[in-house]
């Protein structure tokens, strides 16, 4: 039985309307590869690449087929057979997997930011001559000082008492390089509530872009480094939905042997997304959340990052925080759980599709009449900002933590 229900939920199929875009087509072709009836052709690479990994099809599949595993598995096999394309090889293995080098490259790139006209706030618009790379999109400004250069390794509870627990803070690339204030905010929020926060220097990139592209080898290397960096802590907390989900899912995608399976599973149990940690672990009661003054009287809507709602089943926690903030009006968007269209490197290769998907997201935001769009994944923030500006809309995009006193 090939019911094809996935076609209704697949944001890419909804734009392309071609069978190779949807889970059913990808699944069928991957099966043919396994049977030896289909080669890893460049066309096959494009088909397998053209997936946001948003998991909407997985959530709705009557037979519970795990398409994300099919797609990621096919990508991994492809990397194994053919190696990575040059640009990914360079970016993943030489740059992203080496945290110091990654920092240097980002810093170097940021030196050329003045070349780009500034549009609004901290967003720079890529001018025409860079269109080949950025395709005219608005990309956020790289921070002047990275989080890694301003954060303390050990952050004791602010009341000077014995910490009720010790948690690690996993910063992730976007928080480190673009939104360092988010990291500081998280540490401040936690240390105010009796938690000691450790920020290990040895931590690395979570590996999302890397292992979701099929580079399991580099993915495992990052997994090992991160597991080692965070040894001996009660929990590991992030401000990025993609990072928390990626760290949790090492056990799902990467293990090559039983030992890895066990250790990655143990690691998973300690990972908490920030929103999840605040509601489920710290159990902060609603009346303890205070809205920052600047947001008083505003109307907010929430965007569910795929990596929170479908990868981690985190749906109620962020809403609980938003609804607890007195002075803020919360309006649920009709398509709150629709992927924003970013899909990591998907948007680099398929920016035209990203824009079409984002336009549907934007319609949902418009329908709420919200002044601000709130989410908890820097990846989504970057894409939402770009598309809101492109649609000449007034809404500002915030990370949930930014609203909280």
């Amino acid at each position, binding site marked *: 039985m090939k*019911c*094809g229900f996935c076609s209704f939920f697949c944001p890419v199929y909804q734009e392309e*309307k071609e069978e190779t875009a949807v889970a059913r087509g990808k699944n069928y072709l991957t099966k043919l590869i396994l049977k030896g009836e289909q080669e890893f052709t460049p066309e096959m690479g494009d088909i397998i690449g053209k997936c946001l990994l948003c998991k909407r099809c997985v959530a709705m599949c009557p037979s519970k087929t795990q398409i994300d595993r099919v797609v990621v598995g096919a990508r991994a096999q492809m990397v194994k057979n053919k190696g990575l394309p040059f640009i990914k090889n360079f970016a993943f293995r030489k740059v992203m997997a080496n945290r110091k080098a990654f920092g240097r490259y980002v810093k170097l790139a940021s030196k050329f930011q003045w070349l780009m006209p500034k549009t609004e706030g901290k967003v720079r618009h890529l001018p025409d001559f860079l269109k080949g790379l950025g395709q005219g999109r608005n990309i956020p400004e790289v921070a002047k000082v990275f989080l890694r250069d301003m954060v303390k390794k050990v952050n004791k509870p602010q009341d000077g008492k014995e910490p009720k627990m010790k948690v690690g803070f996993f910063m992730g690339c976007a928080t480190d390089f673009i939104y360092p204030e988010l990291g500081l905010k998280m540490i401040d929020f936690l240390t105010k509530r009796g938690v000691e926060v450790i920020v290990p220097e040895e931590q690395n990139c979570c590996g999302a872009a890397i292992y979701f592209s099929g580079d399991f080898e580099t993915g495992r290397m990052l997994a090992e480094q991160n597991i080692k960096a965070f040894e001996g802590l009660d929990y590991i907390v992030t401000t990025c939905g993609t990072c928390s989900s990626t760290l949790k899912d090492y056990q799902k995608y990467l293990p090559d042997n039983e030992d890895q399976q066990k250790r990655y599973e143990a690691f998973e149990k300690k990972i908490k997304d920030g929103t999840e940690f605040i509601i489920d672990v710290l159990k902060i009661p609603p009346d303890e959340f205070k809205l920052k003054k600047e947001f008083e009287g505003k109307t907010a809507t929430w965007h569910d990052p795929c990596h929170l709602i479908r990868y981690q089943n985190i749906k109620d926690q962020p809403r609980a925080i938003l609804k607890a903030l007195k002075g803020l009006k919360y309006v649920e968007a009709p398509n709150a759980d629709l992927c924003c269209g970013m899909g990591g490197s998907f948007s680099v290769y398929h920016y035209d599709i990203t824009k079409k998907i984002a336009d549907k997201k934007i319609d949902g935001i418009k329908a709420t009449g919200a002044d601000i769009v709130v989410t908890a994944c820097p990846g989504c923030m970057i894409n939402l900002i770009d598309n809101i500006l492109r649609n000449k809309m007034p809404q500002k995009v915030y990370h949930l933590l930014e609203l909280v006193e």
Partner: protein
Amino acid sequence: MIKESVIAELHKIVGKENVKTEKEMLKAYSYDGTSSWKHEPDVVVFPTSTKEISEIMKLANAEKVPVTPRGGGTNVSGGSIPIMGGIVLCTTKMNKILRVDKENLTATVEPGVVLQDLTMRLMKEGLFFPPDPQSFLGATLGGIIAENAGGPACVKYGVTKQYILGVEVVLPTGEIINLGGRTLKNVVGYDLLHIFISSEGTLGVVTKAELKLNPIPPAKKTIMAVYDDVAKAGENVFRVMENGVIPDKIELLDNWVINRIEEMMPMGLPKDADAVLLFEVDGIQEAVDKETEKIVEIAKKYGATDVRVAKDQAEADKYWMARKAGFAAVFGKAKTVFAEDVTVPRGQIPALINKCKELAKQHNVEIVVLGHAGDGNLHPAILTDIDNKEHYDRAVKAMDAIIESAVEFGGVLSGEHGIGLEKQKFLKRQLEPKVIEMMKNIKGLFDPNNIMNPGKIWE
């Protein structure tokens, strides 16, 4: 193989980006909703207008290239498999809802509109299109019309053919014709409109359709009745209706399905029940309340061991979710599943169910029953494995016997799925030779070169 010159012409007609010949693409259009059929086309074409479809058909007719029309590819008869190769004409990019006319309760749609998209659009106007094939998330209107699709709601509302007022069709020769119109009554000449509804894409391509709509009823209620004998449940279906209540849905789950659902998502269904019937009544509140009372009374009178009225929408949704999960439960439990589509007059439901039980024993296979009991369209499903030859052969025998008995009971071998490739071998058991000959003659009249979805319906 298709000629290069034909591909070049197709490029001119629909633009290069809408003509696909990559082998991955051909493979992705080699299947439909079934698991048993596949055949690759030579090219997949995505037209965006009636004019383009007309030009494609003229070209194909001149070159004698087979054309298989296809929408969402969700059908379960093999009907959209390009079994002779050639062109797959895919309408998914013609997906505009052209008009919703509240005054006349009609909508005008292109063939690639997905049913659920239409339903969501109509909901905003307080309207609905009653035919509800369970492939609504992927099925397109073109296919729904070509297959004359039905679904649970047809107990009260009927099937697709009762909701199509008119169509624009491109004939296999490329001519564009209009059949029917925008009115409920229409007796101008032969009713050619209805030849296209259930033509399984063998007579032409529907390029536009005028649909009849209903206002959404303001109230509805769900009733679950439990039985210790599945045949009693079958009898209850017609008892309720002969006592004057026409529910909009009556669905049946047997013991096997109930237990699989409880394994997947425990929701308190009675695991020891031999069968459960789900009724839904809709209409104005007062009528719904009265009809609910009546169903409870009749169900109890005719042997239901327990009857529950859903106290709110959440409980009702739970029961209907179970019905939907039943489908996944069946297909998840065996490598190969024959999903039968036989339909009998309502009074024969108990007889058919008993026959299924008997055949299961006789051939030593698992036959489960879940389906639209309300209209006699049961879906007996046989669980087997195509790679286990001995078991598979027994399953085939059991399936043949089910179809045989459905016809004996005065029923039909397919209620809503169509013949396509899947049921060709049974056609002769249902239709007289003269009737098949007439159908073939009609086909020849519309499609002299036999290029339109060739190889379907009859062997």
